[in-house]
């Protein structure tokens, strides 16, 4: 791999380009796997209905067609014998910033809801592959936390080596990232700008939402006049403003609000703000003090995407405790463990397993934190996050018990196709060719 000569390297590059082009061409003509796949002889951890020993899964057109002790499929189906190993749904990372080439913060204004993370998405980033090799099949790529209102997220599937558009999670709901606390006040405070305090933070947020209300009123007013008299020549349409349009979509409930937040008091303020303006908060991210106000989170159906045991890296992470996830869960909060990192997204299974130790989550509860609950936060829990008929065949075969230090993925399937296979040489990606 390292010692290839310059000549063969050039040849390989050309060849690889041709190969990739043909793969891309094939992929465009065949967006989904047409053939049947059967995975048999697996310990299937369904997440929603227990484990099935010696279980099988029938995959048809990239979806789970059947799951049980035995399944029937056409004779020409590709059969993968899992050899008794564990099979889980693909991991969903509900908070990631990989594959954005560090274009994570448009920190030129504290309110930038019109930023689309999709526009920065670098589908060739190797971080996508490395997370895939750790069993991650879906990620929510979020704006950073420099701004009180950042940008709109993009949801990807980790189909490393597929085309850019194939990697976008089809028809995923839209999410917007809000932030709070130290980051915005540090970024703008260091420039002697607003906000430099938590008061400033929330004032900026409220001001933006008030502007959005005004904007909506202008349009409602215009639309009402046009509805009354569509030929009214005296009525001119208001200006289209991408920023306010995005915020209006928050108020209209069309954007799921994901909030970067640490302190419990700020969570309560954000809940009050959401009520004041009539939108819903989908999830608090990081949420390291959720255990202090878990009742209020549960009452407002706000999930958390949190770390297992990170702490102390800044003042607002000082009260972080590793029992946070389970304490919040026991109060009825939907809890996900997320990476926020191109490191931890490679072993989220271990991070989830820590909740079994800190607070005594059950195996299924722990697994749910990196699958179904994370999928709910992203808004795709009807499509991924468990092994149920009709869901996307995003699956991981592990060589050992996944909720431990030891289990690592052997094969990762997305939409029924193998995208990672540890037994393959080179990167272990299925599109590997000699000399890669």
């Amino acid at each position, binding site marked *: 791999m390292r010692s290839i000569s310059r000549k063969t390297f050039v040849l390989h590059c050309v060849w690889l380009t041709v190969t990739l082009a043909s793969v891309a061409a094939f992929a465009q003509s065949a967006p989904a796997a047409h053939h049947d796949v059967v995975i048999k002889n697996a310990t299937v951890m369904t997440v929603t209905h227990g484990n099935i020993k010696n279980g099988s899964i029938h995959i048809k057109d990239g979806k789970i067609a059947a799951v049980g002790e035995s399944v029937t499929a056409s004779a020409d189906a590709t059969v993968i014998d899992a050899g008794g190993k564990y099979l889980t749904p693909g991991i969903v990372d509900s908070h990631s910033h990989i594959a954005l080439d560090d274009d994570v913060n448009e920190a030129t204004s504290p309110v930038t809801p019109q930023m689309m993370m999709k526009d920065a998405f670098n589908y060739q980033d190797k971080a996508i592959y*490395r997370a895939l090799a750790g069993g991650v099949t879906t990620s929510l790529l979020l704006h950073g936390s420099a701004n009180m209102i950042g940008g709109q997220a993009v949801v990807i599937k980790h189909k490393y080596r597929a085309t850019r558009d194939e990697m976008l999670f089809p028809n995923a709901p839209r999410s917007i990232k809000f932030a709070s606390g130290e980051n915005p006040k540090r970024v703008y405070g260091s420039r002697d700008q607003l906000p430099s305090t938590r008061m400033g933070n929330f004032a900026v947020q409220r001001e933006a939402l008030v502007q959005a209300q005004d904007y909506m009123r202008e349009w409602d007013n215009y639309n009402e006049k046009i509805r009354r008299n569509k030929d009214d020549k005296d009525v001119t349409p208001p200006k289209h403003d991408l920023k306010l349009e995005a915020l209006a979509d928050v108020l209209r409930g069309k954007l799921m609000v994901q909030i970067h937040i640490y302190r419990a008091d700020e969570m309560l303020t954000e809940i009050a703000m959401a009520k004041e303006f009539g939108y819903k908060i989908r999830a608090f991210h990081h949420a390291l003090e959720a255990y202090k106000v878990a009742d209020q989170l549960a009452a407002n159906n706000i999930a958390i995407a949190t770390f297992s045991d990170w*702490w102390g890296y800044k003042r607002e992470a000082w009260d972080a405790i590793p029992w946070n996830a389970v304490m919040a869960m026991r109060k009825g909060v939907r809890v996900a463990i997320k990476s926020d990192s191109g490191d931890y997204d490679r072993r989220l299974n271990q991070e989830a397993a*820590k909740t079994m130790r800190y607070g*005594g989550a059950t195996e299924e509860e722990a697994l749910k934190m990196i699958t179904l609950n994370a999928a709910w936060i992203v808004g795709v829990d009807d499509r991924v996050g468990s092994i149920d008929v009709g869901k996307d065949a995003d699956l991981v075969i592990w*060589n050992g*018990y996944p909720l*431990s*230090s*030891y289990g690592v993925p052997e094969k990762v399937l997305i939409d029924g196709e193998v995208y990672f296979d540890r037994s393959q040489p080179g990167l*272990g990606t299925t599109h590997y060719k000699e000399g890669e």
Partner: protein
Amino acid sequence: MMQPSASKPVWSGHSCPLPLLLFLILIFSTLSTPALTQDKPVVLKGGKLLTITHGVVENGTVVMQAGKITAAGAASAVSIPSDAQVIDVTGMTIYPGLIDSETNLGLTEISSEAMTNDLVERSDEIMPHMHTAEAFHAESVLIPVARMNGITNAVVAPEGLDTLPGQDSFIQLAGASATEMLLIRDNAMPLNFTGDERRNKGGFEKQKFPATRMGLAAQLRQAFIDAQDYKAKWTDYERKKADAAQNKDKKPEPLAPKRDLKLEALLPYLEGKKTIVLAAESPSDLQTAVNLANEFKLKFVLNHIAHSQPVLDYVASLKVPVIVGPIYEAPKEDERYDAVYSLPAQLYKRGVKIVFASYSAHNVRNLPDQAGFATAFGLPYDEALKAITINAAEIWGVADQLGSLDVGKTANIVVANGDPLDVKTDVRQVFIQGRAIPMTDRQTQLRDEYSK
């Protein structure tokens, strides 16, 4: 699937069993001095002993007396002192306290708060006269958090920003004061040659010396040459002084050379009396650094080498131990996803002695997870365990005191509900110098406060 459940779990959940609780209360209420003294023998009876040096004892007993292990073996073969506090640890796994071979414990509290950090002196690359022992904050909130997971000893190193950032300390994670916790001051010195991370690189308008690998190497070489000269000056002085003493009338008393703390600090290393911890990542940096070390006959162990996979045979030929990783270091762009995960196994296969380090302060508690994860990529289990116990004790020159359940060693002992290398395993009690350490820290206090 899950950990096989213990046959007779003694401690379940968070709470201690009543006898242990009473025992702890007794110990803390009767303690006359805050120092780590063990009043009476403590016996851990009926546990699974991971002795490290002489295998696994399924039904074993350990006796701790006066801070030392006085017996460790099969329950049937160990006699229990009549005045001992006997704790039934049936179903538990007993192993020696874990040793983290590089941490920043005691040098930081909140990473982003500058005034809580004493990680590295940024004014110069060559700072061998910085002593972590002199900044070590014994009351750090982070230390109990780390020891709650069975880490009882650690190397405290300055952050790796400078070429020579200062000298390490070898600590014990409990004690009445820094004096008690600092087992060895200046036990080793990092030499960082991780060229990609040099701080003075950048545009020409900002560059200052040393901005390149050449500059770093030249500066380092000059430092050791200066130290050699300094040593020669002092040797010459001592000779003249002795000469003058013998010939009192004829020869005048020579003038002592001016002390230079920087150069003085380098001497034990130049003389091969202490260990240099040589950090490099890539093959070229590694070889440059090793050549430099050999040029001055430094005694060294290697550190990191996370991207030196192409030269592992060379590494093995050096016949020095390696502090490997962290294995979570991201692979280079062209490397396979497990290039760094599998490094410990690759080194072990070549006969290299390895140890692990958390390279952390807040996450020291996760040291064993890394060892466990390395086994998923080919490192034998026993070697992974050794890499955070006896191997580390050997490298840091304390194998006669730490790193295994052997008679005569310090009674730093962990009682856990299972496999020490699995993320799910819960540590139930830690003993340091034979004394049961309170299993509380700021985080358990917050947990308990908000669980009411």
